[in-house]
């Protein structure tokens, strides 16, 4: 059992390193992506900032507020889509008999995590220093939120990827879900900006809880009235069980 776990760990490490090395191929300028992509992001944010200023809560620094909402949310969506692709399609890494779709999925999600975690650090540290929101008041809460988004993304990816094996049109539903999540996942707002009568329609969403935890953990001046780590954990455990069970089930079904 322990030996099997160690083997699976090593397989995931090997695949993750390979995934990260493949970034060099995606970005012909090698690891320049690490500078170019954030720089473009900053440019967009600088332009957007003037428009967004009125939308962010008055006492919270606008750029840090936006970065804390956007990057973790994108990390979640990318991890979910990467796992969905790895589970739903016949990856070429599966030609290696010791590689399973679960390994490929987790490796793809870790790649997404590495990219967005670097982006997160590159943006949020300077912007919070400039906007005097440094240091974060509870870094553990921030990391818990990022870790929750990653694992929830992996879990949902397994669910959607497994369903995609037998029902490919689910891809369309997933793109609607991603769009909806950008709107109601707390990317651009905190719950205190919404009238409390609407809270029951929004707070079921674990992604909103994660966004709230990130901002609650970062800003001294913001305390989320709804963020619940245990609620997020319940969702993660439920979805992970469902996703892994479905993946195990559809593994017996031939690829279309």
């Amino acid at each position: 059992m322990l030996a099997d776990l160690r083997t699976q760990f090593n397989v995931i490490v090997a695949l993750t390193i390979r995934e990260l090395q493949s970034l060099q191929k995606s970005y012909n300028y090698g690891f320049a992506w690490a500078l170019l992509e954030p720089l473009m992001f900053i440019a967009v944010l600088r332009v957007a900032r003037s428009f967004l200023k009125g939308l962010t809560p008055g006492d919270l620094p606008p750029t840090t507020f936006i970065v804390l909402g956007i990057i973790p949310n994108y990390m979640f969506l990318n991890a979910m889509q990467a796992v969905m692709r790895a589970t739903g399609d016949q990856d070429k890494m599966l030609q290696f008999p010791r590689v399973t779709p679960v390994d490929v999925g987790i490796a793809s999600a870790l790649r997404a995590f590495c990219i967005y975690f670097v982006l997160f650090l590159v943006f949020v540290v300077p912007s919070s220093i400039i906007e005097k929101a440094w240091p974060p008041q509870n870094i553990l809460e921030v990391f818990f939120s990022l870790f929750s988004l990653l694992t929830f993304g992996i879990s949902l990816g397994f669910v959607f990827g497994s369903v995609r094996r037998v029902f490919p049109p689910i891809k369309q539903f997933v793109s609607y879900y991603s769009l909806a999540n950008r709107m109601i996942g707390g990317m651009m707002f905190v719950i205190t900006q919404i009238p409390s009568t609407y809270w029951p329609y929004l707070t079921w969403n674990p992604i909103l809880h994660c966004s709230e935890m990130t901002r609650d953990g970062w800003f001294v001046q913001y305390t989320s009235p709804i963020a619940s780590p245990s609620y997020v954990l319940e969702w993660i455990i439920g979805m992970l069980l469902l996703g892994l069970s479905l993946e195990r089930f559809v593994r017996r079904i031939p690829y279309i």
Partner: protein
Amino acid sequence: MTIELQHVKKNVRAGAVRVTYDDLNIRLGDGADVAFLAHSEAGIESVLNLLCAADAPDKGRIIRDHSISWPIPSTQYIQRHLSLAANARFLARLYEVDEKDYLARIAETGLDPFMNSRVDRVSGEIKTIFAFVAGVCLPFDRYIITKTGVGKKAFPDLADRLLEDLRARAGLLLVTSQAKAAAKYCDQAYVFDQGTATFYDDMEAATEHFNSIQSKDKDKEGGAEDEEEDDDSDLQNMMALDF
């Protein structure tokens, strides 16, 4: 220590290949050198996917209780923008072998001058030799080989030497359309034709069966008039079996 396909059903729909394997029973015993004799339209790639657990059967059971390689020399996993050494390191990490030792073993086959070159800057032949050597240098109980004449120009004896060494320590599964090569390296064979796999433990009988299939195919194509031309086209068919 075997790999067994028991009553397997598999519909193969890959491009022009349309075959249904029904009640497929294959047993690869410990250490036996087995050939899969198949022409390019037999859908053998799908059977290999089943053996490697890369795909599931429509029906039936697959039992694996020894380690098996991927189809060697497949180059699908190779990253073109990385060096040969970096690609080898990936395999070493994946199969938990000592990186230094593994790289040294690959280098001493004659690939040393190319190890630090990017894959897209070496010739196709070197890339194939690397894929072959990298697979063969890893420890498996059974190796799936889909090409025996690798790197004949650059390193004339290399493939033969490595295959002989491999046969001494593990089982070989040779997937080929060349009955001669099968007879040279194997002592058992499965002949694949029209959704069936016929087992032979006599290579002469297997060769005879396979040749009869080949000649039937030629007759169907109506190309039996010029023998010399047929030899060439046969060679083309054999080359088509590169995974």
